[in-house]
Structures are given as C-alpha cells and as structure tokens.
C-alpha cells in the first residue's frame, strides 16, 4: 500500500465536517503517523492529542472508521478497505477542535472518589507486607492508561448522556483498584451506589471490548463492586442480622 485517503473531521463546538486528505504511506504506518503527516504538510492547524506514540499514555483516542481506537496503535493496513479511512473525535465528550475533546469531566469525577486509605504500616520503616497474589488483582486495574475509550462506548454516557449520575467504567476500575488494594481501609460502597451510579451499568461489556490494555472491566471490576453494593444494601438476611447484632444500614 503506497497511499491512502483519509476523511478527517474538522470543526469545533459550532459544528464541522469531514475533510479529505491523500497521504503517502511508509511501511508500518499507524493512523497517528498519517495524522501527523497531514499536519506537517497539508494542515498545520489540525488539532489532535498525542504523547508517547506507543500505547502507554492514552492521549490519542479517536474513532477510526467508527471504532474507538488509540490512533498510535492502529495500523493503517488493518483499517484500510475500499473507501477512505474516517477519523473523528470521541463522541461521548464535547468537541474542542478537530480530534480534540473536552475530557475534563473525567478528572472531576475521579477527584470525588475516595483515594487509597492505608492501614497502619506493618514495619517500622513505613512499609507493608503484601503477597504477589494479593496485589495482582488491583494491579490489573492499575494498568489503565486513562484513554477514556471505555467511557466513550458506554451507552449510559454516549447515548443517554447521564454524566451527572453515572461515573462510567473508568471510574469503577479506579474505585476497584482502591477497594482491592491490600492495605486499603477505605469504604466506597455507599458512594458507588448513591453518587457514582453503578446500578445503571447493565453489564453489556462494551467497555471491556474496547480496552486497549485488555482490562476485564466488567467481570473483574464492575461486577465485584456491584456485589459489594448488593451485599451491603439489598441482602435481606444481612439486614436482619444488622437489626439483631447492630451495625449501620448504610442508608
């Protein structure tokens, strides 16, 4: 393949449209290379975010031929078909310009979640004893590169725009890594139920399918958190036990 045609969405909050660019390719080109080439040679004001170009920073999220992808990890030859390759911004967030969206909402939600709250250290030097099998579960969630592709495909956010009531898969993964940290004594169950809206997730696994880090978001993070919420708030036997032996109802 020597060249390819790209249709790149250009515009801002007021609106925009696709513009067509022909790009000469080099072997191994990823979509981000093509965008950079357009930037350098045809449209120096074409806006896109990127940093590492190696799938580690999660900056260059976009929709390529309608699929949510990291542009730096998407080989052109893998997405080239008969027609042009379309590149457009994530649709779950407001557009700022071209391929750049306003993702600041994600930062606000994260700041509202209780961070890891450690118990007293086990040793005098301030450290803890933790076994590898204890850290492996939360380590999966800590692989998250905050590309927000999971947020972008979650229908609660994308279609229903429930950003005010629902934190989205990224933040359930974040809550899960804190909840499952072996030294954490925090408690996020009431917050997950009342403020982060975990109940709205109906486990369609769209988030898991798009995660470039391969995090099993639904099965390993969201479902266990849902179980904690159910155990605490909706288990009738536990409710009776609490009324007999004491303990807060958490309501």
């Amino acid at each position: 393949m020597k060249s390819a045609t790209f249709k790149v969405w250009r515009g801002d909050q007021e609106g925009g449209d696709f513009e067509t660019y022909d790009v000469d390719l080099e072997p191994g080109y990823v979509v981000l290379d093509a965008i950079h080439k357009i930037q350098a040679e045809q449209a120096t004001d074409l806006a896109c975010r990127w940093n590492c170009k190696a799938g580690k920073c999660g900056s260059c999220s976009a929709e390529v031929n309608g699929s949510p992808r990291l542009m730096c990890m998407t080989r052109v030859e893998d997405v080239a078909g008969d027609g042009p390759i379309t590149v457009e911004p994530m649709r779950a967030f407001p557009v700022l310009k071209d391929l750049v969206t306003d993702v600041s909402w994600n930062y606000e939600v994260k700041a509202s979640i209780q961070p890891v709250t450690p118990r007293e250290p086990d040793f005098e030097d301030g450290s803890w004893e933790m076994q590898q099998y204890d850290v492996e579960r939360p380590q999966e969630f800590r692989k998250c590169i905050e590309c927000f592709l999971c947020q972008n495909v979650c229908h609660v956010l994308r279609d229903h725009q429930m950003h005010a009531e629902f934190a989205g898969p990224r933040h359930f993964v974040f809550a899960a890594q804190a909840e499952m940290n072996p030294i954490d004594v925090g408690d996020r169950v009431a917050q997950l139920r009342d403020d982060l809206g975990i109940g709205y997730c109906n486990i369609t696994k769209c988030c898991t399918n798009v995660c470039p880090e391969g995090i099993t978001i639904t099965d390993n993070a969201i479902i266990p958190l849902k179980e904690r919420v159910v155990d605490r708030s909706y288990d009738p036997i536990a409710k009776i036990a609490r009324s007999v032996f004491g303990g807060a109802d958490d309501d």
Partner: protein
Amino acid sequence: MSAYQEFEHDVLVIGAGGAGLRAAIEAAAAGVNVGLVCKSLLGKAHTVMAEGGMAASMGNVDERDGWKTHFADTMRGGQYLNSWRMAELHAKESPERARELEKWGALFDRTPDGKILQRNFGGHKYPRLAHVGDRTGLEMIRTLQDHGIHQGIDVHMEVTVTRLLKDGERCVGAFGYDREQGRFRIFKAKAVVLATGGLGRAYLVTSNSWEGTGDGHSLAYHAGAEMRDMEFIQFHPTGMIWPPSVRGILVTEGVRGEGGILRNSKGERFMFEDIPPLYIDQTADNPEEGWRYVTGDRDARRPPELLTRDHVARKIVKEVQEGRGSPHGGAFLDISWIKEHIKDSEGHIKKKLPSMYHQFKELAGIDITKEPMEVGPTTHYAMGGVAVDADTQMTTTVPGLFAAGEVGGGLHGANRLGGNSLSDLVVFGQRAGEYAAKFAKDNPNYTVSEAEIEEAATEALAPLERGVTSVNPFQLQFELQTMMQNKVGIAREEEGLSEALGSIGEIAGQLADVGAGGNRWYNPGWHTALDLKHLLTVSEAIALSARERKESRGAHSRLDHLDKDKAWSTFNHVVRKGPDGEMIIERRDIPPIRQELQDILEEEG
C-alpha cells in the same frame, strides 16, 4: 494590548511528570498555595513511558545492597563527573521515596516474603529496581497524580510556558498560553520549580514525546541560569528500528535484565568483547555465568548486556559499521532464547514484559516469545541540565528558580544508569518542593514587570500574526532534528560539530520568518513554532559543549578523540547567556569530594 488571565501562587511548578508532581505535593504539604502547570493533560507526561523501574537500595532481594553501593555505582556510571553530593542524597533518600509511594496507593511487584521486589539493571551491582512489570513509570505517575489531586493543588492542564518572569535577578513567575483557546496566562509566584523533563525532540530518532523540547532548560537559560554537562546525551541502546513509523520507541532495558541477549547478523553474542576496564571485575566471563546472574545467583557476575547504556549503544553501532548489523541497521535482541532454560518461557515473558510483548506484536508484527527483536540506539535522556544547588535544587544564579528531574543537571554525570531517573524524580522533586515552599515563605514581596509581559505576548503571537509563510514550523523542526541526528549524534567530530553550530545559526535566522496558519484555538503549527526557540537553544548548548570536550567519556563519543583523558575528569562544562545574548561556555572545577565519600568509592572498587 492582549488580554490575560492572571493567577497567583506561592509556588508555581512547571511540568507535571514525576518530579513536578512530587514537588507540588511537598510544597502543598508545607502549607503554601501551589499551582501546577502541565503541557499535556494531567497524567500523560513522559514519566508514563518509563518502563524498567526505580532504583532504591532497599536490599529486599540482596541484603548486601545499601546506599553506599548505590552511590558508588552511580558515580562509576557517570564517570565521576557527577555532583557527588546529589549522588549521595539520591542514594540515601530513594528507599524512603519508594516506600512512600505505596502509602499513596502504588503496588509494586513483590518478593516471596511480601516485600517490594527488586530487579537487575545495567550498572547496578545488586538487584535494585522496584518495579511493576514493565510499566513502572505509569504506576509512579498515576500514584502521584491520584494523591496529588487531593492536596489542594491548582492544576493548569494543557498550558505551555514560553517565558519566565523576573524581578531583578529573581524569578517571580511565568508567562504562557493554554492550548485549548490560545489565551495568555500570567502566573505570579514567589518561587518557581522547573520540572519540564528532557529535550529528545532535538533529534530525529528519539523515545521522547512531542513535549520533550527542552523548554525548562531554555527558559532557565534565557532567565540567567546556567546549564551544565550538556554534551552528555544518552542514546538508549535499544530503541525499535523497524518499521520506520516506530523508529525510536523504547525497548526497556528490563528485557536484558530478564535475560535478553544481543546478537549480530552472524548470530554472535558480541557483547563479550571489549569490556571496559572499569567493569572487568564485575562482568561475567561466559554466557552460563551471565544466565546465573539474571536468575539470582549471588555469586555470579552480570552479563555484558547489562553494562552501562553508553557502552552497549556504542557496541551496537560498531557491529553495524563493521557490516554485522541486522537488516535495518541495528542488532538482534533476543529474549525468546530463554526457552532453553525455562519451561513455560512464553508465559514468563508475557508476565515479566507485557507491554514489550504487546508493542512488538501490534506495531511490528513480531512475537518476542518466539523471535528476536531488531533494536538500535535512540535519543533518550539529557544527563545535562540546569545547574542547581545539590541540597535545595535552587539554580545557582537565579534566586527563586528551582529545577528537579531531567531538567536539573548533576546527578548523572557523563552517563545515567537505568532506574536512576525515576528515583531522581521523587528524591529531588521532594527537595525542590520543600525548599521552594521555604523560599516563598521567606521572600513574600516581589513585583512583576508589565513591560516584560507585553514583550512575552508580542513574541508569542508573532508566528500566528505572520500567518502561512514559506517557512513551515514542522519542516523547520524536521530540518533541525535531521541535522542534530547526523552531526551531534552518538559519534561526533570537530568538523561536524562546527558545521552543526553553523546550521543552528542559520535555522535560528529563519525563526523570524516561521509562520502558522489558522487561529488561536488548539493550533499545533503555532505551538510547534514557539517550541522551536527552545529546541534551538538546547541544540546549541549540546553542540557547543560537545565540540569543547575533546575526549570520549560516558555518553559523549568523539571519533577524533577516541580515548578518555584524565585531564578532562576534573571539571564540568557550563553554558550561560552572555551580555550580548551569545552563548558562553566555561569550565567549572568539580569541588573536592568529602573524604568519607572518597573512602566509599575506594572500598566499593
């Protein structure tokens, strides 16, 4: 007259990678008002790319390790041009800085007895690097980010600083713009910490992101600070080289730490030849001993693949020059061979090096559990940086201006050991934050000059006001990078360096004509035009210092002066801005080392 958004902070931290975040956290803990400026979104800085680990002599895997050995290893790696005081502080304080990350939520890999696991790395005598697979930098930046957002720090995301503001000699703030709308921002501050990272974008083949344009080096220089050791640029021996689109992307040294070996096109394991004298006693005699070392045999010595980065990079270049390179001009790095020793080698490699597996599979179509990788040197790290006081990290000539992390100079001397960067970030980030807060408390009164702000605004708007011209900012950047790659790269000589300085002057001349189309909203052409000034400044400092050092030492290799020369071991090069705006280079004698530390160097061999 432009409109500005004004912000006032006691301490302004510029840069939000590991060092900037750690400085901001420390300053906030001291009870002052802190602003943190990120060039990108929070959590995306280049620290995220660090893979192998963080050096800290906790002795969890080998109890013989301690700060003295770490200190001696760092000095040897730096060919004794390091600031010995920084190397001492770094070795002493990194264990505590590592442990405190766990308090804030980090989860390092564990030893069988539940402590932080440590791995082998080039130039470190014992297994020393705390790590999480091969994504340690992500773990560190995310931990600092997630802790930092609860410390009352004001975060300014996607804001680029173009100039520091002065009150007499003192630094009292910064001028910049936000990427989103191109609005100007003025930050007034009692103290300013630079934590802007590196300058790899001065070269064509680099592991650095678009951000690494030497902003902090250049901002400090133009504000009157000195840069030291600028000739020492680390070319990491193992970057990806094929396909062209991935050229320069880092392949972690952890591959070699886990047993990966280098071969040439003839299948020879060439690293066993030419072991440097400083390391002969520490290096394995044969492959069998090398394998025992990487699998934890305490009596074995390290395989030659784990020699320092400068040496490994030069060896790869030599193989290529002598016609034994890989098809695309590098060497073969093979981890799949460990199947000779390990039963489930495929599972083991995926577990220990998950992102390397992923990176080669996705971008090069190579399965590293089954076949070798093609690798070659990539511009990775600036050992040189802004000259600072070792204890406080305040610049030597500009009161109120501090520097930490890669932008700061001194710790690494002529060559940095892998793993010493992540520890550098938190050790000296913490110190810079502490002393910047103290300086802010002790020096509350200052004035910001309106004229200086006007001048900064005019300068920043110029490329945009010129609109599209015959000088495209991306093309000019490409021209500079190509020239630096060819003439100031891994092998240098007098003539090429002089030509480079000439070219830098010519490109600087075109800066007045560089233009960018479009408007102020999120305009990469405009932003690239503004970064060019920084790139030119650091390029000149590198070329000038490299021409001046007429010997080969550490990362600096001269084809016309192949040997290390003792006469060049007693001073550092320092560059500063002269009265007429010209760059001046000077020799600065290394202060005599404390006897106690000299004794350690002798004991540790």
